[in-house]
Structures are given as C-alpha cells and as structure tokens.
C-alpha cells in the first residue's frame, strides 16, 4: 500500500487553534508591563541617535549613565594631572641632563687648561735644568 507522505504531513501539521482566551492573556500580560516599556513601543525610532537615547531612557539606565559620566570625568581629571606631572618630570630630567653636560664641558675645559699649564711648567723646568747644566760645564 502506498501513501503520499507529503500530503499526510500537510494534514498532520496543519495549523491548530490556541486556547480561546489566548488574546486576552496576551493583552493582560501587556497591561502588566511597566509603563516605560509600554511607552517605548509606541515611539517611532528613526535614527540611531534616537535608538541610543531610548537605550538610556529607563530610570536605572539614567543612574548608570550618570555614574559612567562622573567616572569618566574623574578619570579625565586624574589623567590630566598625571600627564602634567609626567611632563614636569620629563622637563626636570632634561634640565638636569643639560646641567650635567655643562658641568662636563666645564670640566673638560678646565682639564685642557690644566694640561697646558702643566706642559708649560714642565718645559720651563727642563729649560732651567739645561741652563744650569750649561753653566756647570
């Protein structure tokens, strides 16, 4: 015996009625929804900014938003303060480096002058010795 499976499936899976009070129960659940959610539905959301604004509309979200803004401001102030401190430290370090370089340069100059003086003293000493030696002969 053959049978048309697809035809039987259409029969078996035909639509069935929900319970007679189904609509009333849905409407009762809608009536029990918080006012904010109900209002949200009727508002047309045209742009992304409106959708974003809608997202922050419920009261808990407002508090969360306020908290987030306060945190953001605190982080910004703290960050600015830290940044300035860091800049000041960099400037101080640069100044220190500059001073160090100046000292090093001064020491080099002093060292060079000292060498010249030492050579002159040495040369005059040698000259003096040669003169004495010549006088003795």
């Amino acid at each position, binding site marked *: 015996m053959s049978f048309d499976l*697809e035809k039987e499936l259409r029969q078996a899976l035909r639509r*069935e009625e929900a319970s007679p009070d*189904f609509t009333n129960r849905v409407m009762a659940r809608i009536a029990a929804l918080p006012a904010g959610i109900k209002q949200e539905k009727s508002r047309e959301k045209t742009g992304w900014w409106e959708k974003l604004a809608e997202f922050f509309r419920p009261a808990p979200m407002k508090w969360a938003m306020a908290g987030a803004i306060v945190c953001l401001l605190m982080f910004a102030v703290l960050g600015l303060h830290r940044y300035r401190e860091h800049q000041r430290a960099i400037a101080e370090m640069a100044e220190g480096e500059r001073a160090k370089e100046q000292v090093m340069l001064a020491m080099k100059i002093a060292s060079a002058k000292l060498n010249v003086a030492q050579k002159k003293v040495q040369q005059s000493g040698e000259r003096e010795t040669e003169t004495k030696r010549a006088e003795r002969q």
Partner: protein
Amino acid sequence: MHRPESAAKPVESLARAKSGDEAAFADLVRDHQTMVYSIAHHFFRDRALAEDLAQEVFLHLFQNLASIESPAHLKFWLRKVTSHRCIDYSRRQKMKTISVDEAPEPVSMFDLPDAMMQSTLRRIVATLPEKARLVVTLRYQEDLDPTEIAEIIDMPLNTVKSHLRRSLVILREKVSRTLGVM
C-alpha cells in the same frame, strides 16, 4: 475569535497598533495567534509550553512594533522570532525527544483512520532533531518553500534542502516501520 474586518484591513490595523491602539494590537494577535501557536506546538508537542512561547512572541512584538514595516514583514517577523525561540527554548530546557521506540506499535494498514495516521506522523516528526523538525514544520504547516525557510531560520539554502530530504527519508522509514505503510 478571528474578526474578519481586521483581516480585511491589515495595513490599517498595523498602523493603528503602531500608533498605540491596543485594540488594534489585539486584532493583530487574533490574526496571527494560530500560526505562532501552531509552529510552537508542532515543535514541542506541548500545549502549555507552546502557549507560553507564543505569548512571549507577541509580547516581544508589542515592544518592537515600531520596526515592523508591513503586514508581510509582520508575518515574516513572527515566523522568524517563533522559530528562533523554539530553538532557544529547546536548547535551554534540553527537551526530551520522543524516541522511535515510544512510537505506537505496528497496526494493520487496512482501514487506518486518518486521525491515527496524523497523530503518529506528528509523534514521529517530534523525534526529528530540532532544526530538521523546524524545517519540516515550516515546510508543511506554513507551506513555505526552502528559500523562505532559509531566510526565516538564517540557514543556508542547501542545508534547508538537505534537512528536508533527510527528514522525509527518516519519516518514510519510521512510518513504514510503525504503521506498515510504504
């Protein structure tokens, strides 16, 4: 019950519901409750669960009515949300599927009443894996073609077709094993 005037003017009904008219929204529910409830019922084989899921779908619709563009879009939206919710519910609750062993004992093929055949078929459909079950339900309850089903359940067209093919093979085999028909 279904009111003919709301079916005659679905565009106005939708527009009124979108503007906040709750009576118009109730009309939308009446017009589509059978479709939504039936998808869920054929998927779960559980009246209470199907009603609960269908109610949640309409609550979700109420909250997203502004995004519905036309009556055709409404129908597509309802089928899509119902299908996805069925899969989600099923995964959350790890629904127990009826094994073929729980299907009725073989009976004589002669004078097999339609009611028994259909009841058996529904039970066998319930043994299919969840996605295949949904594809079969949308195909034979809603009379949708594979392209429409693919759009509704976000599945590649070839996967839908292969689900349908394999499901029919399985169903045919199980029906013949259970009822003795070929």
